[in-house]
């Protein structure tokens, strides 16, 4: 019924943010009026490097930004983009399920891809190459059904093109 | 010498037993009126015989005797003891002049008729009254029943308790007020019968065969109501009224002393019932049982005894039923009734009786048998007329708010 949180000291050896990441975050400091404003860029930096933002990373970002971890987590948890439990695959693909894509078989394509990759929606393949997720409107309704993989937009998906993508998933 | 002692013993024993059983009767009637069964479980002690609860008075008496004789610390001890004694003594002493039967034949042989020996003997029949031949019997009754109020006032005073004292004060005011209509009603009976001897009064009714209730209906009504008030029975039980005064003057009493008060109250009721029967309901008389005392047979004497006591019991039952029929008066209503209704009615009755007595003497020779009929008719007309008139004319003020137009003294709001 109750889960009493225990205050844990962060062991210095288990820090997850490398000096490079920290430096990259610090590079944003001059660009914003307050440190708090760096929250989102920092999260993006961490996510880009670690492919997720673990709780420990949140604590460390908070230290950097002179905030409480809860304040970072507050912002972070609003965005479904940031995963916290495990890193997403090398390629992260969002299949659109909004109206246009859904009407043109987006959900069927997505189901097909999941079945083909052998994962559930939202999961990562065993080899860590690909994460498949639902996405809301990608703003490319004229190419429905479409999918965003990394920064690449895959248009007019068919089972065939999807299968091709699954063989070499790249962003 | 022996005769009065025997009579006193019989009277005392009978009265005490009667009071005890009237308590049972009262409880029964109270229960029945409320659709309950009433006391029905106490019978023969240590057995399962219940006898409809006839053992209840014994149990009640035992309880009263065994109760702690508690005397509160704040009472005036001598007066506190004196009050119940005086009230019971006064209540019992009244019965010295009240005939509790007619007479008993002088000889044990006069079972069905006279025999020569009895007629010849000098001893007359035995009158069933402790003090026979008291010519001021009614006056005596009056005097002693007035003493009863001392018991109440002294009891209330000695209790040193505001409720008790209020009860005592109410009692004195009430008894004094209602003695006036009571006296007026009795006066008219005395006027009609020409005697204050209770035995004479009964004889007067028995001889003529016309009870005073028929010739003086207004007097009867006034007397009965005043008698209720004098006996402090509901709806006139303001000296006690449990709901307001928690028992009034006997609030502080327990055990035997309380018992004395309660017995005295029942004796008052019995006295009142006797007076009603003797003065207005013909006493022992019922048609067929009349005749001079000297000619009374044993059958006649016992019959008269039974008739008298049936009448008395009937009146007492009436007393008890009335208790549940009417709510208690408010004190101002009680006083209004005494002074504004009862007193005028009593006066009208007295005057009317005097006129009828005078007229019937005067007209007896001319009208003969019609005199009685005219007298009866007239008295009933007077009764109804007076009643209507007084009811119509009496100012009834139910509004007791402070009247602005009358100067009132400033009252401390803290009180």
């Amino acid at each position: 019924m109750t889960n009493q949180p225990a205050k844990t000291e962060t062991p210095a050896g288990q820090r997850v943010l490398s000096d490079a990441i920290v430096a990259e975050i610090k590079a944003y400091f001059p660009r914003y009026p307050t440190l708090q404003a760096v929250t989102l860029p920092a999260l993006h930096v961490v996510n880009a490097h670690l492919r997720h933002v673990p709780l420990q990373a949140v604590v460390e970002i908070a230290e950097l930004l002179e905030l409480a971890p809860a304040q970072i987590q507050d912002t972070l948890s609003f965005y479904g983009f940031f995963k916290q439990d495990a890193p997403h695959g090398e390629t992260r693909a969002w299949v659109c399920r909004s109206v246009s894509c859904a009407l043109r078989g987006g959900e069927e394509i997505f189901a097909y891809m999941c079945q083909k990759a052998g994962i559930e929606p939202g999961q990562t393949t065993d080899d860590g190459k690909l994460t498949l997720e639902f996405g809301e409107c990608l703003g490319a309704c004229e190419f429905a059904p479409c999918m965003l993989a990394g920064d690449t937009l895959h248009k007019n998906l068919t089972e065939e093109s999807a299968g091709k993508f699954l063989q070499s998933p790249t962003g | 010498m022996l005769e009065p002692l025997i009579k006193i013993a019989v009277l005392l024993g009978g009265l005490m037993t009667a009071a005890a059983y009237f308590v049972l009767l009262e409880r029964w009637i109270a229960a029945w009126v409320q659709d309950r069964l009433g006391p029905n479980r106490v019978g023969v002690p240590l057995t399962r015989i219940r006898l409809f609860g006839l053992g209840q008075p014994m149990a009640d008496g035992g309880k009263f005797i065994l109760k702690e004789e508690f005397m509160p610390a704040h009472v005036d001890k001598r007066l506190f003891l004196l009050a119940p004694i005086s009230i019971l003594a006064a209540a019992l002493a009244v019965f010295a002049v009240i005939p509790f039967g007619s007479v008993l034949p002088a000889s044990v042989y006069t079972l069905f008729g006279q025999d020569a020996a009895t007629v010849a003997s000098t001893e007359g029949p035995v009158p069933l009254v402790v003090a026979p031949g008291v010519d001021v019997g009614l006056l005596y009754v009056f005097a002693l029943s007035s003493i009863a109020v001392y018991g109440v006032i002294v009891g209330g005073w000695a209790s040193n308790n505001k409720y008790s004292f209020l009860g005592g004060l109410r009692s004195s005011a009430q008894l004094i007020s209602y003695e006036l209509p009571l006296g007026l009603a009795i006066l008219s009976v005395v006027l009609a019968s020409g005697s204050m001897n209770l035995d004479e009064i009964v004889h007067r009714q028995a001889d003529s065969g016309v009870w005073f209730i028929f010739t003086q209906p207004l007097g009867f009504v006034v007397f009965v109501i005043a008698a209720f008030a004098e006996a402090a029975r509901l709806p006139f039980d303001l000296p006690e009224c449990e709901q307001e005064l928690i028992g009034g003057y006997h609030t502080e009493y327990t055990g035997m002393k309380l018992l004395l008060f309660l017995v005295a109250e029942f004796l008052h009721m019995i006295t009142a019932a006797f007076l009603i029967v003797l003065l207005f309901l013909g006493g022992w008389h019922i048609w067929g049982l009349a005749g001079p005392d000297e000619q009374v047979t044993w059958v006649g004497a016992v019959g008269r005894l039974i008739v008298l006591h049936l009448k008395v019991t009937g009146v007492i039952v009436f007393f008890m039923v009335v208790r549940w029929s009417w709510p208690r008066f408010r004190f101002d209503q009680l006083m209004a009734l005494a002074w504004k209704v009862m007193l005028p009615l009593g006066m009208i009755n007295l005057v009317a009786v005097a006129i009828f007595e005078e007229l019937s003497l005067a007209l007896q020779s001319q009208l003969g048998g019609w005199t009685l009929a005219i007298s009866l008719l007239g008295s009933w007309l007077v009764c109804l007329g007076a009643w209507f008139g007084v009811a119509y004319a009496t100012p009834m003020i139910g509004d007791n708010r402070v009247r602005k137009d009358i100067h009132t003294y400033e009252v401390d709001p803290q009180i």
Partner: protein
Amino acid sequence: MAIVLIDGQEIEIGDDERLNGIQVAARAGVEVPHYCWHPGLSVVASCRMCLVETGKRDADSGEISMLPKLVPGCQTPARDGTVFVTDSEKVRQARAMVEEDLLIRHPVDCPICDKAGECHLQDYHFEHGRPERRADIKPFHSRRRELGETVTLFVDRCVMCTRCVRFTREVSGDAELMVVHRGAHEEIDVFPGFPLENKLSGNVVDLCPVGALGDLDFLYSQRVWFMKQHASVCAGCSTGCSIQVEENQDRIHRLKPRENPHVNQWWMCDEGRYGWKYVHDNARCLAPQQKTEGAWQPLDWSDAPAVLHAALSGENCSPENSPPKNSNPKKRRLAAVLSPFLTVEEAYLLATYIRQYDENAVLALGRIPQAGADESFPNGFTIRAEKCPNRRGVEMLLSALTGDVLSWESFLEQAAETPFDAVWITGGYPPVNGNDGAGEDVASEEEKSLATELPAGLASSTLIVQDLFDSALWRQADIQLPSAAFVERSGSFVNAGNRLQSFEWAIRPPAGVMTEGQLYWRLLDRDGLYNARRVLEDVAREHIAFAAASGEIPATGRDLLLNQLV
């Protein structure tokens, strides 16, 4: 003067006042319901309960133009000519809709909710909600998780007003609380490994308008409607927070802060909030005792005046004869130690009593318990290191009576030089090993040593000790008098900011204990029962330092330096 119209009623506000719609409406006697707005926190306008119609009255033409949409009253500043309408059909509908929306996801487990009876959701629903229910809601049990040592969260009862989150960020400054998964699934939570444990954490429970946050100390111990509220002053430190003691049948159940803009605003610290437990400690001294020939004899309170008279004057008098006043033929040297836990009134009465016997009696200030350093929070709330409520009051009284303040240490030195014949030592200190609610031992080294050994210099005197708990002093005393805790007394404390606050007793002392005020009152043969108000009037009349304390003391206290050149 700016004039604001509330439901057609004209309200004047000062030119430099910054008030919002809710505050202005409150001045007009109109209550605008609200969840998320709190005068001590920033405005977020998220609950939408305070929606009102607003508009502007043209200064010249007097024409009123209204905004078409409803606006949150908490976020709308009142300026000259601003018009608020809080009782229109539109506003009522909006409130009913908000209430309905909140209740759709509410567990409605009021029977087991500690907030029931003081819950805004209940009150507002009763007042502004729909009379009938349109959704098919069945009561369910709220999920629950602990946020820290002191506070638990009933997740589903929350209405997401975020008052608690803002409190930890703006007032206590530790920002432990957050809203996770903002949006349809938002919840209050702490970051894993960073529980809510600041020294003001209990305040979030008071802030919570519904039953979402529960005080673990108070949880399920009493239903709120059984408790009686008494205004009082916290004795935990020299800040002297205005508090409200909630008790039922002489048993305290919780303390809550009372709004006082001059002292504690709306808050109080956990140390004070949970620091009342010693009041109901079984180890409290409960019976007066007297040492005769080395053995303790129980002392009856009715004999106390005679016994104390004998102890102070050195001459015996039978208890039947009332002790003659001002009789001290042997010219004994007396001293009284006035504890900083005494109220001003009690200290004054005791000083007066001692000086009846020896007009030169030495008056000293009792030991000042210290713990750590003053601790300030971002909004100015301070927890003081001085763990006593009335040091300033006793000091001011002492300097008024004797010209200077003799500290406990100096007093002990003086006693060591020339021992006193009789010393009256008052205490009232919480137990030495008491904790501040967070489990930390706050007893200083000096306190610990006092608990075990008697200071030199006092051993040869007749000792009259009045205290709450057993100590070395208490054990060495010749006369032991039990003392009353702060919630059992009436009187006034002067806090570190020279603000005098008066309070009345909240609970009765345990059987056998007579409060200080009552005892001194009786010793001085005053008529009737102890009346702190009358004593304070005397003090204010006699001593210029307390002049400001005459008359009625407002609930928020009175600044004693008011109108004084310092």
